[in-house]
């Protein structure tokens, strides 16, 4: 009798131990994937594993990282934002245009706004584009996919119209006009770390806190998980929805500023298809496209997985075509694992 029960006990605990490892691998998959990528490329290339390379790659990741943070909020809310790539481009172009000086013909003057004003105006523009998305979706009940698809085209078109398809190459400003320093965002470093990466870290921490510790964060998860239940619990679901798209737009504006500063030019086609990379980062980070599930930590890992993978492929000299294939495979694999994780969870 005692024999049987002790065998049963060992067996069940062994079973649970095995299950836990599988569970750990499944839940920490983005993290383990990142470790694997770093290890593999470090073996394949002597240049990969160095602090300076990591920082360079990180500043590439930052661009996608900004978009992915905004995208995470939208996806948590159960939506999607296809317009972020175009918003990035439009915001970059507007920033570039402001740096050239704004001619007001009636007054016969050319205004050269200082860099801080350019940054603020660009952020407001990004949020305004997001607000258009949000209002279309929350009040006019346009499906998120369609609304943001439309705004994606409109924003890209405006960016092209503003420059007539050309690129602003002179973003340096002039000391006489007091508008120098735009390149600071893209080129300066604090303690060796690029400004873009620092902004990303600060933004990630702030959004992480917002999600975990504020009423707004809880509202966001609730309305993404079940909008009707959230509404009946007194959650202002429409306001949350609009706010989410505005934040996403503002994140795209930050990405636009950092990118044009890194490139020292603002082109109207910047950020094309970046929205897809951002969605991929969020999905690789374990968020569910149906809404309500996902974390900022996962999304950041997802962004780093994509960035470190594609930069690694460049470093070891794999063709750009193969990079596309690899990225696609990683995304599909991530979604596959997501569905395994979320299917296993609900019922005990």
């Amino acid at each position: 009798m005692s024999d049987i029960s002790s065998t049963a006990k060992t067996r069940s605990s062994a079973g649970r131990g095995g299950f836990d490892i599988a569970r750990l691998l499944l839940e920490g998959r983005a993290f383990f994937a990142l470790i694997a990528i770093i290890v593999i490329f470090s073996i394949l290339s002597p240049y990969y594993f160095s602090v300076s390379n990591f920082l360079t790659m990180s500043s590439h990741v930052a661009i996608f990282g900004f978009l992915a943070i905004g995208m995470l909020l939208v996806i948590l809310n159960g939506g999607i934002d296809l317009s972020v790539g175009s918003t990035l481009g439009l915001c970059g172009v507007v920033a570039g245009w402001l740096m050239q000086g704004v001619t007001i013909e009636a007054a016969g003057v050319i205004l050269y706004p200082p860099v801080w004003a350019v940054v603020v105006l660009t952020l407001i523009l990004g949020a305004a584009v997001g607000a258009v998305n949000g209002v279309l979706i929350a009040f006019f009940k346009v499906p998120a996919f369609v609304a943001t698809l439309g705004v994606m085209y409109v924003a890209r078109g405006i960016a092209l119209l503003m420059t007539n398809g050309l690129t602003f190459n002179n973003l340096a400003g002039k000391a006489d006009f007091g508008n120098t320093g735009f390149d600071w965002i893209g080129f300066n470093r604090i303690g060796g770390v690029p400004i873009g990466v620092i902004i990303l870290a600060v933004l990630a921490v702030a959004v992480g806190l917002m999600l975990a510790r504020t009423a707004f964060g809880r509202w966001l998860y609730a309305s993404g998980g079940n909008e009707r239940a959230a509404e009946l619990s007194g959650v202002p679901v429409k306001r949350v929805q609009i706010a989410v798209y505005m934040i996403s737009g503002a994140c795209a504006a930050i990405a636009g500023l950092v990118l044009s500063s890194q490139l020292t030019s603002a082109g109207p086609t910047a950020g094309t298809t970046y929205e897809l990379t951002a969605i991929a980062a969020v999905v690789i980070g374990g968020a569910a496209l149906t809404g309500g599930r996902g974390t900022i930590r996962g999304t950041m890992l997802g962004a780093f997985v994509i960035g470190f993978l594609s930069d690694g492929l460049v470093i070891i000299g794999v063709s750009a075509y193969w990079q596309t294939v690899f990225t696609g495979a990683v995304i599909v694999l991530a979604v596959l694992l997501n569905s395994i994780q979320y299917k296993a969870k609900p019922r005990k």
Partner: protein
Amino acid sequence: MNDTPQANPDLREVVMAARDVAKSYGNVHALKGVNFDIHRGQVTTLFGENGAGKSTLMKILSGVIQPTRGQIILDGAPISFASSSHAQALGVSIIHQELSLAPNMNVRDNIFMGREIRTPTGIDYAEEERQTRLLMEELEEDIDPLTPVEELRLGQQQIVEIARALSVNSRILIMDEPTSALSASEVEVLFKVIRDLTARGVSIVYISHHLEEALTITHHAVVLRDGTMTAYAPRDQIDLEWIVRNMVGENFDLGSPPTGYDFGAPALSIKDLTVMDEGGAGYAVVDGMSLDIQQGEIVCIYGLMGAGRTEMMETVAGRLRQAGGTIHLHGQEVSHLSLAQRIEAGLCLVPEDRQRDGLVQTMSVGQNLSLASIRQFTRGLFTSRKDEGLLITDTIRDVTVKTDGGDAAIGSLSGGNQQKVVIGKMLATHPTVIMLDEPSRGIDIGAKAEVFRLLAERARSGLAVLYSTSEVSECLSIAHRIIVMHKGRISAVFGPDATKEQIMAASGESVAA
């Protein structure tokens, strides 16, 4: 004659049988080992309250789900259905409560959906149409095979479902609440079809909440309660009272109205409330209704499906817009307030469908409980984990949720405990008026009693309670006043000493039928 299932069913009499069939979802035992006989060429009706396990049993019999244990015997031989199409191939079809037709397609295409008659060049529409016409003739229904299903009345759609089942030569037809949305004349047509089918040797399993109606059609009655069979009998030996007694339990008590205290000030006052149909059909689902509730009073609203109970409550809560009338809470007009503001003012709603409207499945038990009261534990910009934890543990204790703790997944709870979470979530907002739309829907009888006890306790300490139900036995429990709604209006008001017959008659149910 006794209808109790034998260990070895008589093959001449019984076409299909379930023996010791059980089904569990985690800790939730939907069926606890039942025996069930389907009589050849006759109608066997399964009675039972919501959550008794009727639908679970039917899904097992039709192969939609597999039982945890037990055996299905078809024509004397044990069988295990791999899927519903496997069951269908063996002649067992189910017509679900929610029809499974594609409204955008026509009758012919719906009937042959998934089994199109093919030719080398495509689909043989002419042959399909001919067979559809034949089926409609058999059923004596004048429905053109090329009519889009969305243009048919609900009763006709039901006939199309039946035709589809017959087209695969079903010998056993399971109908899950087929009349719940039908008009009286459509019910007549359906019953005629059922009689014709049994005359042709088709065996029918019938489920309905409409007890009197079911009694007119059935040959055998089986009662299911709380996952167990409580009674079997042929039609000629039973009456309505027998069914109710076995459904609800002889000495079952859902409580009595709390007494020994005076009602307080007027809490909620609704005057001439009118709500238009949400679909824009232009008729009033709530038609000039007036109602006053005092603090500490418990009012029950009884009515059939479509009587306007849900719309009334959702409008008062602030989810739907009112077309006319006023709503006063403690003397203050609240019509212009948002739903969130009304919750803040002390008026809240526990919705009818807890999966769709009550719970956020992606969040934990604790996060669901605290969702409506986030402001209570927000300090400045951030929420306080400590205060939230306190609120959660307090609420879990108050409404006696059986859970591993606040971090447990909401899906791990049984239906009754999930319902307590939804109620607890609203009670945590410290309301003065609480409305509950069918709070007992889909929860077992023990949880039901606990929910009512909880409400009675709260009423004693001054909470005004308004709940709706479609079970008469639940009206005659804790309510001080019973209001019967019929077609958007109040058709009668009773005290706690009313009889079931009075209440049902006022709701438009035909007791005499």
